[in-house]
């Protein structure tokens, strides 16, 4: 899960772009893929200002099955501790645009330390972006753990 509070995220950018597929939308798809990356990088830097620009005020985010708001997400990022945070590695991503809406579906691996051991979980996510006032804004994001 792209846990709020992540401080230390290693984003495999090369892998992200190599494995990304643009289903439709041309420039919009490229823009949204870049925003997905910005989101991860902003989170890694604890850059709430960057995240604030990416997240719509009405953002809904499902984290480990819990529903959280933009405010709660940003608060968690602000309070997070680098040494305890997991890492995220994007694997694949597809973007489909339908009018002013874009649906991003992809997978990523999350590594975290539990009881001194590194645990890896794969997740499949669905993110919804909406084009508002000249910008793509993230309005919903959720992920489900992939069965092993």
């Amino acid at each position, binding site marked *: 899960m792209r846990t709020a509070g992540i401080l230390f995220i290693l984003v495999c950018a090369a892998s992200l772009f190599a494995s990304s597929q643009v289903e439709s939308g041309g420039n919009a798809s490229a823009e949204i893929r870049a925003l997905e990356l910005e989101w991860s990088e902003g989170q890694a830097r604890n850059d709430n200002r960057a995240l604030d620009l990416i997240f719509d005020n*009405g953002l809904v985010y499902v984290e480990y099955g819990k529903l959280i708001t933009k405010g709660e997400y940003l608060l968690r990022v602000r309070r997070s501790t680098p040494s305890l945070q997991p890492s995220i590695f994007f694997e694949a991503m597809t973007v*489909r645009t339908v009018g002013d809406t874009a649906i991003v579906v992809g997978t990523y691996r999350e590594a975290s330390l539990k009881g001194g051991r590194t645990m890896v979980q794969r997740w499949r996510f669905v993110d919804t972006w909406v084009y508002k006032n000249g910008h793509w804004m993230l309005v919903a994001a959720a992920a489900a753990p992939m069965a092993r």
Partner: protein
Amino acid sequence: MTTLFLAVLLAFAGTAAGYGHEARDSDTRSKIIALENIWNQAAEAKDLKALNAILDEGFVYVDRDGRLLKKADVLADVLASPPVRVSSEAMIVRLHGDTAVVTGVYQIKGTERGKPFVRRDRFVDTWHHKRGTWTSIASLTTPMGTSGY
């Protein structure tokens, strides 16, 4: 089944002109909640005609095991699944122009290998308004309160 399909058509019907902005939004939210409930009933009844009207051709679904299914896969799954009771609660609709995001809790009751089960998952559905109708373009369900480990 015909009744369900008619319900879908009614839910799709446009909002009367002359409404205020808030009344229109409230009306839209009600319609989308109605469509969510019809979706559940259609899944229970294996009503593919109703489901076909609700789901966009490019619909994508991520299930609680992280499997990615397209519209045809979902319809085939519904047809092949044993009888279940499905319901949604705590639904909230957020409108973003022609897009609506619905969050809620999805409960499914059924029998698996002879044993009854009840599952409660969190869901996020995205709807899009096109040519006077709302169709679901994406959906994800995930177990509630899991770390995945």
